[in-house]
């Protein structure tokens, strides 16, 4: 597998990809280890300590009834909730939504795209439905779906994934149409390969690189849309700590306590930036067209 290995090695030496991957790994690690990072229940509040400035040390009333002197790196919000805990637990929701949407949208999108590109009579009807879906703004469609399904993590993921699907179907279909003209596909037909084998064994593996890149962009956009939904109050319930919810609640006090919006906003921006940089890095190294443009790929 030297060919594949060298691609990954090249990706690893790409500055942007390396930075993006490092930030993402750090975020994922923080999200997984959230309970052990000096956090408390993110929904717990101490009404006596509201709007504490970041970096203060206060005698905080804990969920178990005791009072402990705690350092609050990001302070507390208007209810007296620990912002650090809410932001770290919020990373769980954001990353889970990003990854899950990418997986869901990609699996359905690739399936439909292969069908559209590989089965002639399905192509027209399927693509017209996708065109119709694309005509509806993604956020509005997601809002409508969440409203219809009642908000919980699963419905939010579905609602964000559905508007992403048409783009992936289009990409997959165009890759299929393009790769179908390759001589090795003609050779496979001459070698008596069945149509589904040609699609799955010959065409799909060669379409993997652009689809992986698309997956990163889909994940980045899903993280943003989840935050938008939460911020608008149509996403996950307000008590669930997500970056969008934290920002939405901080918004009313933005003039006095801007950090309540800026801190989760910074985490959101950094994560989306990291995912996009990773995607750009993968595109530069996986896509031979871009690799050629930069000389020997990435340096």
């Amino acid at each position: 597998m030297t060919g594949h290995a060298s691609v990954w090695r090249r990706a690893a030496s790409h500055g942007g990809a390396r930075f993006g991957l490092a930030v993402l790994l750090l975020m994922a690690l923080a999200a997984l280890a959230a309970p052990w990072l000096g956090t408390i229940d993110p929904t717990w509040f101490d009404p006596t300590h509201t709007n504490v400035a970041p970096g203060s040390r206060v005698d905080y009333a804990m969920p178990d009834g005791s009072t402990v002197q705690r350092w609050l790196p990001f302070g507390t919000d208007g209810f007296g909730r620990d912002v650090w805990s809410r932001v770290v637990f919020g990373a769980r929701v954001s990353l889970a939504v990003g990854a899950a949407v990418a997986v869901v949208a990609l699996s359905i999108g690739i399936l439909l795209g292969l069908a559209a590109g590989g089965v002639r009579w399905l192509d027209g009807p399927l693509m017209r439905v996708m065109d119709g879906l694309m005509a509806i703004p993604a956020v509005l469609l997601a809002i409508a779906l969440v409203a219809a399904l009642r908000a919980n993590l699963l419905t939010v993921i579905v609602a964000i994934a559905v508007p992403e699907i048409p783009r992936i179907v289009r990409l997959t279909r165009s890759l299929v149409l393009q790769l179908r003209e390759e001589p090795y596909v003609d050779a496979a037909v001459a070698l008596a390969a069945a149509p589904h084998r040609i699609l799955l064994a010959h065409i799909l593996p060669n379409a993997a690189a652009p689809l992986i890149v698309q997956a990163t962009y889909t994940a980045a956009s899903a993280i943003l849309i989840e935050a938008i939904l939460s911020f608008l109050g149509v996403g996950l319930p307000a008590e669930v700590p997500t970056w969008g919810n934290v920002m939405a609640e901080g918004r009313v006090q933005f003039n006095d306590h801007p950090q309540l919006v800026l801190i989760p906003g910074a985490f959101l921006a950094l994560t989306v930036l990291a995912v996009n940089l990773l995607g750009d890095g993968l595109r530069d190294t996986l896509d031979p067209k871009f690799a050629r443009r930069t000389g020997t790929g990435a340096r």
Partner: protein
Amino acid sequence: MTVGGAGSGPDAASPRQAARAPGAPVLSVRDLTIALPAGADRPHAVERVSFDIAAGETVCVVGESGSGKSVLAYSLIGLLPKDLRVTSGAARLAVRRPEPSPAGGLAQPRGRDLDLDLDLATLSQREFRTLRGSGIGFVFQEPMTALNPVMRVGDQIEELLRAHTRLSAPARRARMLEMLARVRLPDPPAMLARHPHRLSGGQRQRIVIAMALLLRPALLIADEPTTALDVTTQAEILSLVRELARGQGTATLFITHDMGVVSEIADRVLVLNQGVQEEYGARDQVLRSPRADYTRMLLAAVPSLAPPAPRAAAAGPVRLEAGGLGMRYIERRWLRAAKQTLALHDFALALREGETVGIVGESGSGKTTAARCLIRLLEPTAGAIAWDGADVTHASRARLRRARDAVQIVFQDPNRSLNPRWTAGRSIVEGALNLGVPRDEAWSRARELMRRVRLPEASLARYPHQFSGGQRQRLAIARALAVRPRVLVADEAVSALDVSVQAQILALLRELQEELKLALLFITHDLRVAAQLCDRVMVMQAGQVVEEGPTAQVFGSPRHAYTQALLAAAPGRG
């Protein structure tokens, strides 16, 4: 030492100017060495190459792929890929003062004839740009992509004159019309208003040549300018380049892989092998009494146009048969009459066991359409096809799949005909497995075939990118033979290969045919290859067979005018 452009501006003082003796070379290159990036298969793309070109003279640089011949050309105009670097090399370019033109002349002819001493290793991009505009003209290989598809031809040519001359608009137009007439394009005013897609490949290449010579450069560099063209077009373009360059006194550096082209156009020849100058001398000396072994090998590998003595006529059973075969494409257009294209008309063939039939023709002649119908990658719109006596003209996909062990195909481009994500072994056993051969037997066939195509058995575990072009074509042949076909169709199977590799693959095909009693259908645009390999040939033009017969007869006394034209256009006859 630098060049401040062709005698332009205040910084023109920097190049060393010397009085030039008459008959001195327009370009002399000394000790040009270009380094490859670390990790490449050799340290230098081009190593200590030296040559001279006099006015009106053509020097051909010949070599196989990877010889560094294109890199050599690109280094002279500063268009090297980023990771290549000129480490040493001096060039002396004599820039002539352009002849004054009636409409006011070029913008930069202040001063007199001058010789520029260029250190190619340090020349800046800005200096190269001035050189490219008026000192050196360049013709690229691919006429389809050398022109901007969204700009009218006239605007693209005019851009050159705007950038490099101070001619008025009417004078520019007059110059362009004159130049198009000189490259013998019909109706120059209409040509100027066209977009490139409305021109044929040959017409486009004429436009590119017109652009390269428009500013009357001292030096013309042509990088495989006829490789993408048909032979008849190639012959016209070659004579055009020769005539224009002689007429304008332009020195020409002509890059090619084709010894036939060399014999048509070269005054002197430089043979490159792996970046090393093997031989440099006058054309007749290099072609008739080469000094380097490598040149001898190259010349010996070029197939002759004279067919060998015919083999006994094949008497085995007919393995592939077609009659009245036709392919008509109908393009339905909204609110307009449907447009019909007849790609193939009334094609008939009976291919017997152990026999080789060649289909020759230029691009668009229908030879590939015929091949794709015969192996039923396409369903013909007329006629009938039989494999091993069984009719498959309109067979269902499932029936076709079961019958596919009868006929197999080898494609032109070995870089694209193997799935890049599959190991060679997996590709080779695929057909056998699809046709129900047990796994063990399929793999033992694959191992046996590797011996036949002379590749080590360990190659089965490798990926296509780990093989050379010739090795990949051997793999493609092994893959086709793994289903034990009775008919092998080779669609331009040696056209993308270097001549030395081509000779090996042809020998392999001949040998496999003898041993396996294959019926071989060989499709090619190359008359030389057809002459050597085929028992019978069919000549196709515009979707129809215009002549067919035993190879010796068709090549020896062609009856149809088109066959005669094809043979006359074959470069380096005799």
